[in-house]
């Protein structure tokens, strides 16, 4: 070991850049949120425009909240804490800048496309394929910069915060790539490779774990670094943080199917999702308690220090949200809460309470240190806290009340469960209007608090001199006490090998045929017995393996990846392999005609799926209200699936043929002329905008590539069929008293809506248990 010390200057410029971007995009995301919340109260705020309409802005709000606001926050926190925890400057200034500007370009591109209807039509995965490519490239840049920094580190041990960052990087890469696999039809449009139930499962495997690994694990890493720093005491229990990490990372990935409870998703997957969601209570609350107990002995400072106030409240909201999540994943609770505002309240207690408050605490802690100047106003920061807290509480209590009201009214029946208590959907919309208004006030207060932060930030930074942190390290650091593992050494070790073989045998036991089941169960039992015997005789080797793993980044990353991949494979592979046209229960979807497909693309482009589901659940009230429950086969050719996650309006799975064409025309033009009291925006541009059919043959061709059984058609035949159907609908409208040219967009959308719910019967075994209906 050399005694010569060198001084390392951290790259804090990148931290400052991400921190400022977080403040700016946070304000934008919240502003759009308040606007769309207002639009639900006052439909006039849609301004009769396409690009300011609720369903176009809602994806902008969610993407800005997740990727712009929280994204910039986690990058700032990760870059600041990682450099200090590994005692090394970021590996590459160029990659850091590429990461920053690339990410901001993605955000701008999203803001420039989503309001104009350029979307993939999957929640939190709306970005079109060229932007998705940019995301993957920038994420890889981030990963390279991070792991390169770890490779150059001067501290051999990896603090638990680094573990959480590693899990974030590898898991988000896996989720994002798999869920965004698609075949382009043009520069701005593509169809996902998965369809129907496959797409539903993959989407919510991604959607749920975007919450887990983008909004939770990196922020937990930030918590494990910044809370001890702010409280000036080590984490309450490092042991608990180890258990927190592994159990959270392993369990979280399995819970995605809880977004699809009571739907056509196979029951075993629903049960799997529910069970693992309930098990998330343990690690989540372990982490929350570890965070809060780190403040032991520092509670007196919470009274005066805004940073600790934000952290304490943020961690408490983490506990609340992670208690509520598993609760909502219980199938019977979900029957009440799903598709209602309760879910919106739950999501916002996480994003505003957990992410927003942790971001505010981190920013207030970093500002004086990155600019070497006292915070402009501690009083304003405290005011921000109280305004924000009142705002969140108003918001989520309004959404709880609203959601439970919606659930009770929409599920309410009379006459021994045979008649709906509130048959008109609009009854529920009008009943929750006061709560929707309360949400606007709550969200407005939270935004006001954030603007106080922005003002405080500007006043603090103005005239201040940015400073970069430094550290002195020995030129050649001491060799670690524990020898790192090589890549092979980390895999070919008794604990890993026994686990892999036990997992494989257990899978064979679960999914194999009669003979394989016996092989599987015997193999699994032998594995467990051998593992026990080996541990008893060579336990030291097991302990040594784990100790060496803690100081070795690459194998650690690989094992984290295996932990998250296992859950995904178990859920997705059987569904992907088995979801063929033969496994459709008793119905199979009829492929869309070319015009209906064009109408469906408009439906997705205008964000109709954000208010209308296409999934009648296996629940009596759903069936009474919307018709026979949805079968697996009825959406088998839908790329992307359109089951939806929220019902601001009624389900549309069986809307086809229910009303005449003229009804749909009037309803799209002015919903209130048909449904008094509706808060749906006017979609009147559909009556004036001309339908672009130029890309339709290519779209049909891609659908065929994806397995949709279209007959071979020339381009002229595709266009001819579309025009003929459009002419027929236009003629029908003319007969009903409306003059709409056949080349207008609304004609295609009506064609699509009138097709919904059409299917062909399939001779197929039905469940031996009979009806899947439950109440």
């Amino acid at each position, binding site marked *: 070991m050399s005694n010569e010390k060198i001084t390392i200057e951290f790259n804090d410029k990148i931290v400052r850049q991400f921190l400022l971007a977080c403040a700016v995009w946070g304000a934008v995301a919240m502003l759009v949120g308040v606007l769309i919340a207002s639009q639900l109260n006052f439909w006039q705020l849609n301004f009769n425009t396409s690009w300011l309409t609720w369903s176009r802005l809602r994806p902008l709000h969610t993407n800005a909240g997740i990727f712009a606001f929280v994204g910039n926050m986690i990058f700032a926190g990760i870059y600041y804490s990682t450099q200090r925890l590994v005692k090394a400057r970021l590996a590459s200034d160029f990659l850091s800048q590429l990461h920053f500007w690339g990410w901001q370009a993605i955000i701008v591109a999203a803001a420039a496309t989503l309001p104009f209807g350029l979307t993939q039509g999957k929640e939190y995965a709306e970005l079109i394929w060229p932007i998705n490519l940019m995301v993957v490239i920038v994420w890889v840049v981030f990963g390279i910069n991070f792991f390169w920094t770890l490779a150059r580190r001067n501290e051999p041990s990896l603090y638990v915060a680094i573990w959480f960052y590693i899990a974030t990087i590898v898991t988000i890469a896996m989720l994002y790539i798999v869920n965004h696999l698609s075949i382009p039809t043009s520069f701005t449009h593509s169809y996902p490779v998965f369809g129907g139930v496959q797409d539903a499962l993959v989407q919510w495997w991604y959607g749920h774990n975007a919450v887990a690994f983008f909004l939770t694990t990196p922020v937990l890493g930030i918590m494990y670094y910044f809370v001890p720093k702010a409280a000036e005491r080590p984490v309450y229990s490092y042991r608990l943080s180890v258990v927190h990490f592994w159990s959270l990372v392993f369990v979280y990935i399995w819970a995605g199917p809880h977004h699809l409870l009571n739907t056509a998703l196979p029951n075993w997957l629903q049960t799997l999702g529910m069970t693992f969601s309930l098990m998330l209570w343990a690690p989540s609350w372990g982490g929350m308690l570890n965070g809060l107990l780190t403040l032991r002995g520092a509670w007196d400072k919470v009274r*005066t220090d805004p940073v600790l106030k934000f952290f304490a409240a943020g961690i408490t909201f983490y506990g609340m949200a992670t208690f509520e999540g598993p609760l909502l994943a219980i199938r019977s609770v979900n029957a009440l809460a799903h598709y209602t505002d309760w879910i919106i309240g739950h999501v916002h207690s996480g994003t505003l309470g957990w992410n927003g408050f942790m971001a505010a605490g981190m920013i207030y802690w970093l500002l004086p240190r990155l600019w070497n*100047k006292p915070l402009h106003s501690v009083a304003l920061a405290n005011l921000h806290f109280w305004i924000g807290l009142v705002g969140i509480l108003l918001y989520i209590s309004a959404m709880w009340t609203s959601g439970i009201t919606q659930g009770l009214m929409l599920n309410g029946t009379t006459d021994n469960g045979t008649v709906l208590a509130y048959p008109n959907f609009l009854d529920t919309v009008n009943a929750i209007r006061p709560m929707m208004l309360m949400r606007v006030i709550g969200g407005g207060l939270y935004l006001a608090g954030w603007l106080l932060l922005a003002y405080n930030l500007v006043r603090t930074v103005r005239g201040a001199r940015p400073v970069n942190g430094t550290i002195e390290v020995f030129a050649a650091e001491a060799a670690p006490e524990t020898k790192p593992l090589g890549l092979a050494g980390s895999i070919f070790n008794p604990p890993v090998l026994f686990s892999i073989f036990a997992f494989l045998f257990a899978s064979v036991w679960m999914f194999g045929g009669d003979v394989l089941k016996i092989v599987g169960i015997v193999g699994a039992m032998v594995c467990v017995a051998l593992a026990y015997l080996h541990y008893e005789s060579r336990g030291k080797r097991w302990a040594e393996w784990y100790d060496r793993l803690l100081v070795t980044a690459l194998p650690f990353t690989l094992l984290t990846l295996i932990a998250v991949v296992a859950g995904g494979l178990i859920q997705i592979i059987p569904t992907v392999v088995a979801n063929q046209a033969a496994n459709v229960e008793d119905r199979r979807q009829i492929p869309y005609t070319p015009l209906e497909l064009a109408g469906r693309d408009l439906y997705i482009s205008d964000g109709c799926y954000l208010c209308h589901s296409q999934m009648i659940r296996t629940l009596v009230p759903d069936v009474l209200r919307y018709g026979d429950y949805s079968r697996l086969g009825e959406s088998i050719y839908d790329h992307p699936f359109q089951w939806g996650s929220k019902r601001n309006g009624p389900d549309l799975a069986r809307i086809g043929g229910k009303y005449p064409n003229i009804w749909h025309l009037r309803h799209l033009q002015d919903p209130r002329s048909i449904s008094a009291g509706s808060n749906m925006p006017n979609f009147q541009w559909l009556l004036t905008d001309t339908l672009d059919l130029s890309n339709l043959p290519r779209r049909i061709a891609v659908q065929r590539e994806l397995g949709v059984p279209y007959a071979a058609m020339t381009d002229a035949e595709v266009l001819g069929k579309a025009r003929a159907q459009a002419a027929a609908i236009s003629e029908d409208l003319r007969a009903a008293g409306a003059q709409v040219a056949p080349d207008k967009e609304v004609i295609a959308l009506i064609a699509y809506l009138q097709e919904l719910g059409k299917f062909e019967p399939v001779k197929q075994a039905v469940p031996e248990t009979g009806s899947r209906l439950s109440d």
Partner: protein
Amino acid sequence: MLERLFLSHATALATIAAFAVASSIFIAVAWRALRMRPNQLDRFSRLPFETPTPACHHEPKSESAAD
């Protein structure tokens, strides 16, 4: 096999298997964490304090247990 998967007969097994797998992971990790040596724990938990942090100018002065 596929029929059994899709017609829900494996539901009960899925619950038990899920619980068993997660419990095994949890117990194994908890066991390793409990067996960590005190000096190892102390070293890890103090890592955030090994890099000097400038004062923030507005926090009340307090005795630090970690610095």
